[in-house]
């Protein structure tokens, strides 16, 4: 297992702040949406640094995953929390790790059931290789290649990113 410590992760977050701030300046109605669970922690950190007054929502994609037919219903943490109208708004969609792209596809589908956003920017702390869909991050704190049998986990409490064998 390898660990990227607090200082390293802070550097990755800092690298995201610039481009995200530019986006918010260009689109003053921007809202942040974190994908549960890891994405919500990253979204909170970015929201605080970039635009603390912007609306912040949480998306639970359990009902939109594409593996219902093979693994069934995923345990749910609770309903998505979006208490603002995202119709015609600019959104920063945040996840901790972008891998296959399937989570983001599900998140986009769910977002559109809340309304039609004007634009969506995808921001992730870590973008890894292994895409299975034509989905890429607009803003990534760090890009890396890890073997397919490894997972990447952002631990918000420790402020660390861990990489280990599944």
């Amino acid at each position: 297992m390898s660990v990227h410590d607090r200082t390293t992760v802070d550097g990755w977050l800092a690298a995201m702040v610039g481009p995200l701030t530019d986006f918010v300046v260009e689109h003053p109605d921007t809202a942040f949406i974190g994908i549960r669970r890891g994405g919500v922690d990253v979204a909170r950190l970015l929201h605080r640094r970039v635009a603390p007054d912007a609306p912040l929502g949480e998306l639970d994609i359990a009902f939109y995953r594409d593996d219902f037919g093979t693994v069934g219903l995923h345990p749910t943490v609770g309903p998505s929390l979006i208490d603002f109208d995202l119709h015609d708004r600019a959104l920063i969609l945040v996840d901790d790790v972008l891998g296959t792209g399937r989570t983001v596809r599900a998140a986009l589908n769910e977002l559109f059931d809340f309304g039609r956003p004007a634009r969506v920017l995808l921001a992730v702390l870590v973008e890894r290789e292994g895409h299975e869909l034509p989905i890429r991050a607009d803003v990534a704190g760090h890009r890396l290649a890890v073997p397919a049998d490894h997972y990447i986990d952002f631990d918000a409490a420790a402020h660390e990113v861990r990489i280990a064998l599944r």
Partner: protein
Amino acid sequence: MSLPHPQLDRDGRLQHFLDMDGLSRETLTEILDTAETLAPVGERRVRTVPLLRGRTVANLFFENSTRTRTAFELAAKRLSADVLNIDLVSSSTAKGESLLDTLRVLEALQADMFVVRHPQSGAARFIARHAAPSVAVINGGDGQHAHPTQGLLDVFTIRRHKPDFTQLVVVLIGDIVHSRVARSDLAALSILGAAEIRVVGPRTLVPADVTALGGRFMPNLDEALVGADVIMGLRLQRERMQGAAVPSSGEFFRHYGLTRERLSLAKPDAIVMHPGPTNRGVEIAGDVADGPQSVILEQVTAGLAVRMAVMSMVLGNRAASNAA
């Protein structure tokens, strides 16, 4: 002879939903939590989720029921399933053979789920046993046996107002013996650990084995209401009564009708429930049914969320075990 319960697989996961038998507190809580997550879907711009897209749900109704059928239909549609409503009331006296023929036809139409409402107790279990293995069966009420999704929506509604079941005093009033709702409520409340379930009604309408069902018989409504957190009226089911179980509606109301005066005997924050349709002036006074303590319409809305939860969990569990 004791067969393994047909609604659970070897790991205790729901494959059908027929009654509360064999369900653990964990399973019930999981259903309620899933329903809680699905409930806000009804508040969104798009009121559907894609979970059951491409699946077909057939409502098999051998008994009239606009409410339950509509609730199941809407729940399935909110999960993006295709829905067939099959009205079998006209052939409700059909013999076993023709029932099985009906099942074969629907299986040939590739239905994934049957929602069954039937006047005979045990019908849902019978159909689950005889349906193709690929078909999940949900009991939408069978005779006097069970109406488990109603039981679920009742405990769902209770939990929203009174989250701690272990502190709960519940009063069920009226026609218990004919009520599959009462049976499912007693079972669900017992599984969730309700502190006390008082059962009130004329002795002719209370089953002899009410203690075994988890209830405590109390002949006097006023006494039973003291300290109550939840008061549940039940419909007088005249269509199922043989002979004079109740002298008259007026007489029933005088002894067991829930009036404002009686309601004041319960805890001030007690909630009033009724599975509907309500007979105003028989089981419940109109001003209580419409009053601030009534959650009768909340029960209806809750019925969508719990049915969505059950349908998606059952079909999800089956998908997972087929893929494994």
